């Protein structure tokens, strides 16, 4: 292609149906191809910008390799970790630093090697492959490229053969689950996912995973506990990649930094993060929907719980996003329209109670952590309560958190145990986790929970069904008769 072609280059375009299908989390094959093309375009533009700073010299070898084997070079440039390198290189150049440009020569050398023959300095290539019901997936398992450390989590060291075999077994089973439950999502996943990067586990979590906006199609994930965890994790992270690609093409939010409540984190999140959470959980919810309604399977209370919990969270989070661009309005309306019918689908009443409680519990704890009453408001609340006056109009303000916050919840842990049919208490009736109030609340014994929750303000609000801002109740936590206070604040 000549330089005249650059002058003729056109903007990326999506049909209205394609943008809506992306919002609904159901893109067709052609739309995914368009997204992948746009990400290749991004990486090429990054190269263009790198050349604009350092000159075309360092790209000469790669350009020669491309003339000899254009398909192979395209393939290497389209890889997610190349996007990580190119973005990092350009950021460094713009900051006046001297990044390692020789990566381009290494890439040119790699392009000249036969496909399955790694450079002698590199680890042998690893992959994960699976086929079920005629649907296949092959992804690279990248446990050696130093660039994998830029995906947001600490990479695991290279896998030994036994570890690789364990990943493969879990991957095979996860693929079977995905193809059986959500075949269309599985097809999208197979088209988007390029590589899996094993990362070190977080002792405070059952599993962690991450996606970088610079690395379309790469998922960093700790070794999953089981196939379901891997299936859900891959669905979730693939959605992040897709949303990143959509947002490369179109701004969806006018004010992406506006802080608010996210059902998936304990700290205040920017609107862009809330959108990411809702979009990732759209397909996760779809997965649990199929798991909870499979007519051939025994009803799984845990699957029903996940479905009921996340359908509400996705719908609420998407519905509360404000200041949307025209493309954002189209995208998010499609997302809301996808999840809306699920809200009316039947769920066992006992499971529904626990799902709604879990969402409310998280919201109340988030408010308590992040919204604060100023000293003057706190004084006025105390004075009015002690004087027996009507509740004054005192409000709270949201404060940004200094860092990511995510903590375990004993009530949620007990809820999972309850749904699995596991015991909640030990041999002497002591709670295995949480408090006596938590155990009573999860079992649905509201009266016992109210009696037991003496020091747990959120627990009292939950069990009593009060419509109260917990940060206001916390101001009066030293006053006697907390139930009366909650009634006064309602």
């Amino acid at each position, binding site marked *: *292609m000549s330089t005249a072609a650059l002058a*003729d280059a056109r903007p990326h375009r999506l*049909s209205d149906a394609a943008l809506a299908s992306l919002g609904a989390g159901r893109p067709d094959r052609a739309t995914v191809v368009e997204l992948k093309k746009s990400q290749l375009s991004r990486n090429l533009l990054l190269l263009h910008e790198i050349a604009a*700073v350092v000159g075309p010299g360092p790209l000469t070898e790669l350009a020669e390799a491309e003339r000899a084997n*254009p398909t192979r070079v395209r393939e290497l440039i389209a890889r997610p970790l190349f996007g990580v390198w190119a973005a990092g290189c350009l950021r460094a150049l*713009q900051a006046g630093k001297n990044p390692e440009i020789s990566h381009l020569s290494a890439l040119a050398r790699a392009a000249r090697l036969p496909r399955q023959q790694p450079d002698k300095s590199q680890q042998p290539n690893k992959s994960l492959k699976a086929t079920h019901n005629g649907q296949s997936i092959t992804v690279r398992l990248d446990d050696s490229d130093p660039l994998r450390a830029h995906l947001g989590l600490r990479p695991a060291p290279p896998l030994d053969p036994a570890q690789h075999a364990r990943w493969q077994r879990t991957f095979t089973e996860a693929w079977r689950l995905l193809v059986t439950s959500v075949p269309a999502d599985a097809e999208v996943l197979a088209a988007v996912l390029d590589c899996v990067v094993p990362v070190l586990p977080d002792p405070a979590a059952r599993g962690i995973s991450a996606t970088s906006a610079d690395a379309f199609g790469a998922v960093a994930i700790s070794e999953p506990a089981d196939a379901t965890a891997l299936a859900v994790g891959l669905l979730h992270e693939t959605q992040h990649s897709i949303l990143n690609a959509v947002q490369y093409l*179109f701004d969806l939010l006018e004010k992406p930094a506006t802080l608010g409540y996210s059902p998936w984190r304990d700290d205040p999140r920017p609107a862009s993060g809330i959108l990411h959470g809702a979009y990732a959980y759209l397909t996760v919810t779809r997965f649990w929907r199929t798991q909870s309604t499979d007519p051939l399977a025994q009803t799984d209370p845990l699957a029903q719980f996940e479905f009921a919990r996340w359908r509400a969270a996705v719908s609420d989070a998407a519905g509360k996003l404000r200041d949307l661009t025209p493309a954002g309005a189209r995208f998010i309306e499609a997302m809301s329209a996808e999840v809306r019918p699920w809200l009316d689908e039947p769920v066992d009443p006992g499971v529904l109670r626990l799902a709604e409680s879990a969402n409310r519990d998280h919201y109340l704890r988030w408010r308590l952590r992040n919204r604060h009453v100023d000293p003057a408001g706190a004084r006025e609340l105390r004075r009015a309560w002690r004087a027996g006056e009507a509740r004054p109009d005192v409000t709270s303000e949201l404060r940004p958190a200094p860092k990511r916050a995510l903590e375990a919840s004993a009530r949620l842990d007990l809820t999972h145990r309850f749904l699995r049919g596991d015991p909640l208490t030990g041999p002497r009736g002591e709670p295995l986790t949480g408090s006596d109030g938590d155990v009573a609340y999860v079992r649905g014994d509201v009266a016992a929970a109210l009696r037991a929750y003496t020091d747990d303000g959120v627990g009292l609000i939950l069990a009593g069904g009060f419509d109260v801002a917990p940060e206001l109740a916390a101001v009066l936590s030293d006053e006697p008769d907390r139930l009366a206070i909650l009634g006064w604040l309602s």
Partner: protein
Amino acid sequence: MDGAVNTTGATPEWRSAMIDVSGLSIGDLTSKVTSAPGGDAADDTDGAINGNALAHCLRRLADDLANPGEPIAGFNSAL
């Protein structure tokens, strides 16, 4: 241009601010770039090459790099 619905065609479509260079070779992409160490990439509008659209596209790319809205999206099953 970014995000606007084109209603002039038979089928509405969304036109991105980002230029599709996926069909260009590396040689094509860099042939108009002269050695300019320390130059400001975002200002490399090169009027001979579809100036305004390309410049807008490159500014948006630079903004994305400088201010990534959500650089790392993560999942933690502790919740």
